[in-house]
């Protein structure tokens, strides 16, 4: 599939080359390879390629939609009544955000496997010797993950609405609601990509699942904070998924939004800042050494 994409690339990439009949492609050399003008078109082409790969991989739907939605339905049946008794509100205000954040995290493993197999196939090295902007490969990966995260969150929100989640503060709040899994999901995807560049092993999928399940179980969206034993409460309260879930709960049910929102932004920003330089170096290394 990747080879077919390679072949079609000159057609779609108007910025630097065009295919005239069966002649050799005439390369447009008006701009240098790293010219900022090419960054946009080059990134867009590669983003499209990655999105097509994502949509064609059944695991995207297994991780992103099927498992999370089943988990949400079952969680609502099993714990819904018990949590309503304890908190007095529908458990969906906590479980839909929880499952959304979890799904967005689990979906990152598809991109991780993609980056590992493309490195092993030599596609990363191939793209490195093609005259495209140096930053476009990495930006396209982040861009495609951003699209996946937003679309995925939207579908789980729809599932939550079908199950009975209601926004007390109107439709605008639901748009803001989508920002939190998006922001944290992009940061987590960057973390996963960085790890995948330095540790190219498919065991990474299991490692991601482990992190994801630990995060799901020890999160305020699963059961309320005061139900956890005293010694683990600080961990539960301050882990990034809890911040995102609390902000989202605040938007749907009402309650403090600013503090958990700042917490989510700090965690996500911290992850991005910590990852960005190792990721750029790792991507260059992975592209050059095959």
């Amino acid at each position, binding site marked *: 599939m990747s080879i077919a994409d390679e072949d079609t690339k000159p057609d779609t990439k108007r910025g630097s080359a065009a295919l005239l009949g069966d002649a050799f492609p005439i390369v447009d050399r008006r701009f240098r390879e790293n010219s900022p003008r090419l960054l946009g078109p080059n990134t867009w082409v590669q983003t499209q390629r990655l999105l097509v790969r994502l949509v064609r991989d*059944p*695991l995207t739907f*297994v*991780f992103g939609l*099927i*498992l999370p939605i*089943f*988990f949400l339905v*079952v*969680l609502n*049946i*099993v714990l*819904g*009544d*018990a*949590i309503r008794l*304890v908190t007095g509100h529908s458990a969906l205000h906590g479980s839909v955000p929880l499952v959304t954040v979890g799904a967005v995290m689990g979906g990152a493993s598809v991109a991780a*496997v993609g980056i590992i197999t493309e490195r092993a196939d030599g596609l990363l090295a191939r793209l490195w010797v093609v005259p495209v902007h140096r930053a476009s490969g990495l930006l396209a990966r982040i861009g495609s993950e951003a699209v996946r995260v937003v679309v995925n969150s939207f579908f789980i929100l729809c599932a939550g609405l079908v199950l009975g989640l209601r926004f007390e503060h109107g439709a605008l709040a639901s748009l803001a609601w989508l920002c939190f899994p998006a922001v944290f999901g992009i940061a987590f995807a960057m973390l996963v990509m960085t790890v995948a560049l330095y540790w190219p092993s*498919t*065991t990474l*999928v*299991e490692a991601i699942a*482990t992190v994801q*399940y*630990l995060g*799901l*179980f*020890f999160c305020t969206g*699963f*059961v309320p904070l005061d*139900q*956890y*034993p005293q010694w*683990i409460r600080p961990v539960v309260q301050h882990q990034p998924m809890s911040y995102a879930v609390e902000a989202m709960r605040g938007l749907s049910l009402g309650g403090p939004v600013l503090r958990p929102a700042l917490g989510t932004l700090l965690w996500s920003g911290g992850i991005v800042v910590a990852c960005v330089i190792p990721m750029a170096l790792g991507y260059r290394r992975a592209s050059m050494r095959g």
Partner: protein
Amino acid sequence: MTAALTVARPRPSTFRQWWVLTTRLVTPSLRNGEVLVSVGSVVIFTAGWYIPLNHIMGPRSGMSSYAQFLMPLIALQGIAFASEAGALRASTDAVTGISRRFESMPIAMLTPLAARTSTSVYRCVIGTAAALICGHVIGFRFHRGLVYAVAFCLFLILIGVVLSYLADLMGTTSKNPEATTQWLLLPQLIFGLLSVGIQPAEGFPHWIQPVVRNQPISQFVYVLRALAGDTTPGAGSVTWPVVGPSVAWIVGAITITVPLSVILLLRRP
């Protein structure tokens, strides 16, 4: 040329072949992280359900402690993870072609299957041991003495072998090892959570209670809970009405899957 023809044909011993194929599966399991993943999954599962739910579910469980109530489900998850590891192995063997290679060698048709089955016993023993250690840490105890404790473990391993057999069948016939394990999570999730292992059947919404009560995992949970016993009478007793449905499920699963897998394995590709 003629010398080669006059040499007596080797007579491979089926027993030794089985042993070689079994050690082929068992030996790398310590190195390639297979054991680590199944033990780690049990630990995460135990911590992930016990710590958050102890306070909320403990008083509703009707038993002396939530650990005592949750233990059968932990044990069943332990063997479920073990059978998933087996499915992954069977699927990898099928995809990489070693299974077809075995078919072309002078090995009896069912020896590889027998080796995979005996390996699944080994995996289930590890899963059971991990579950018992985790259960002991959170406060689970056997209350009926040694005989019932041994019966608990043997019953669990029996379920595990049947489950591994099913998982093996799915793994051998699938083409994608990674997808297989992810798909197997789905029944584990549904049957595990919608069972009486997490909370009593009365805690579920009315419309789903008949399903919850009668599905196989719930029946296994009833038996294991009765075998483990409790200081309160909430655990139930080891009688035919409790044990019968589980035995029927196991016998039914065996009578369907064994002929099915023999047909699938003997079919020439």
